[in-house]
């Protein structure tokens, strides 16, 4: 029993794309369920055949936080603007964890799914997108731990995080996705990206105020420092959750601008390379 659904089939025109390709958001909408399934699959498969399962989503950030607390609080005694260091570090580890997942999984997403890319059509944007979204689950788990830490230290955040936090989360996603778009598309042709990723991640961590406070950077370097979009994201998270820093000032807007620039240019670069993915991967 197979009934043909009687809707008018839509017509597709296939031709060589020239110059900057259109974003083709219609196809992305048609395939929206695939994003959901890819995210679901990533989450489902991630901790399969592990002894500790989802506990890893807790262990990883907590261990990092403990190491940071020992090194930078007990040993180096870095200033934290009066915030207990574990909360101070963990607030930054939330967006940083999301970013690292996106950077690593997203950049490898096209190459990792090369059998899909060479065999069927679907908007290739779905691959880096779903890698980034899959990181949101770990983010949510880590967020619950942060709430626990705040209870433990009896820290009360400002009420306006209700609207500031989602905005900074969005900024984190845009930044992560932007970088993932660039690197995944480059990785199709130059696998050097795979080799560079561990180093890049490490370098970027030092360039971002995760373990330390952005206030240790001297005044004249603040603008240059904010060219790193993750600096804006992390400072924003601390401001929204802990009330540290200056809030939205010029350095934040510079970071936001860079994030949006990376994201938009990443989209167009990705789309312009997309037509050769199946041939060069």
């Amino acid at each position, binding site marked *: 029993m197979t009934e043909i659904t009687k809707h008018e089939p839509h017509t597709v025109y296939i031709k060589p794309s020239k110059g900057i390709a259109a974003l083709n958001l219609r196809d992305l909408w048609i395939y929206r*369920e695939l994003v959901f399934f890819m995210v679901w699959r990533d989450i489902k498969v991630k901790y399969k055949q592990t002894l500790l399962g989802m506990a890893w989503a807790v262990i990883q950030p907590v261990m990092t936080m403990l190491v940071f607390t020992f090194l930078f609080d007990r040993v180096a005694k870095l200033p934290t603007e009066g915030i207990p260091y574990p909360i101070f570090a963990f607030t930054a580890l939330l967006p940083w964890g999301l970013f690292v997942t996106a950077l690593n999984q997203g950049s490898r997403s096209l190459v990792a799914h090369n059998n899909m890319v060479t065999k069927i059509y679907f908007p290739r944007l779905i691959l880096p997108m779903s890698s980034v979204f899959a990181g949101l689950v770990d983010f949510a788990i880590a967020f619950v731990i942060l709430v626990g830490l705040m209870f433990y230290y009896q820290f009360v955040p400002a009420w306006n995080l209700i609207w500031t936090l989602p905005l900074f989360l969005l900024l984190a996603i845009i930044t992560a996705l932007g970088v993932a778009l660039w690197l995944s598309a480059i990785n199709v042709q130059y696998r050097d990206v795979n080799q560079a990723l561990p180093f890049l991640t490490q370098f970027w961590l030092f360039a971002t105020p995760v373990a330390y406070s952005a206030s240790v950077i001297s005044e004249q370097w603040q603008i240059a420092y904010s060219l790193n979009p993750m600096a804006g994201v992390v400072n924003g998270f601390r401001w929204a959750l802990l009330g540290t820093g200056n809030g939205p000032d010029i350095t934040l807007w510079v970071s936001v601008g860079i994030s949006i620039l990376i994201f938009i240019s990443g989209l167009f670069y990705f789309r312009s390379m997309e037509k050769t993915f199946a041939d060069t991967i």
Partner: protein
Amino acid sequence: MATAISVKNIGKQYKIGAAETKFRYNMLRDVIVDTVSAPIRIAKAMIGKSDRKQNQNFVWALKDVSFDLEEGKVLGIVGRNGAGKSTLLKILSRVTEPTTGTVTVRGRVGSLLEVGTGFHPELSGRENIYMNGAILGMRRAEIDSKFDEIVDFSEVSQFIDTPVKRYSSGMYLRLAFAVAAHLEPEILVVDEVLAVGDAEFQKKCLGKMGDVAQQGRTVLFVSHNMSAILRLTQEAIVLNKGQMLMRAPTQQAVDFYLSSGQSQAGEKNWDEQDVSQANAEFTPLSLKVKERSGKVVDTIRSTEPVTLEFEYQLNSSITGLRVGLYVSTMRGEYIFTSFDTDDASLYENFDTRSAGRYVSRAEIPADIFNEGRYMVGVNASSFGVKRYFMDENALAFNVDISGAPGTQWGEPRVGPIRPRLNWQIEKLEN
């Protein structure tokens, strides 16, 4: 009737020569040189001044192909390997973009190129049905409504909640095909998948394809199996070296294909243009399949020995030359490899060959092949030194099994070889 597919002057150009750089990595020296020069090369590539471009050759996998296909028609595509059949299907299913031309496709294209794409070994059969369905462009509701049908068709209902990594390869393929077969696209593209699975399952697949065609869907069917093409299609196009030679009612197209020599009817001749000029010392001339009487044939009998003859010209003396034959199934699984100097005395006499015209002839004994179609590849090289010539898909031949062991039962047997074994039956006890 409305037009389902309209192809206009489609061309697809590929770069070749990338493989050469890959092989260079065999030597440590090259790796070091490559690493040191990498930043310069990348910088050059980024500003579009790659020096590699100059060494790159371009090849047209498809050129100026145009045809229209009406809704509900089944079109066969025939042509030898490398004729551009797969490239055409890839363009139609939007996997790759054409270099020139346009295609207008009315409706969803589902292709059976993609069997099992996106299957994850850790997920259960049930989960993979949803995952794979989504990748093929099915809505969740659509998968829900067809779920039972898919499971029935795949015959794995008992194991539907087991991770597919525990499946046998047959179960895995059946499940994968079942999802693809239930996609119900307006246009279905089928590429040789009928070669997968056991005979029973193949029959089911062909049946499914027949159903699809009867429901008024458009089907593009690529196969090397002329009897399947004749049975399932009304019309066919013949591709050769990326160009469309003809479009005609299937019988006519198949006759043309078989008689024009592209079907490699027992003989392959190399023209000058087919042969790379880089290896001037070796020129291949012809490869022939001969039956016992010496007649060149396309179909051999498995019960009789067959001779493969490779004729070639050496333009200068070559040391360490060996000429090899590779025999594989149409799915690309090798059955055996053999070289003309395998034998110690031939090795001694012909290890060095002076310039001249040669033929290397091998007799394949009777009772080797099972029913089907096989591919012969040829290769000429000096071991560890240089490869002079290689054609992995030089020639194909059919095997007829009448009189072969076990044919009294008239059922297909699995496996590419059908040896006559020395069976003994003893009664041990009453």
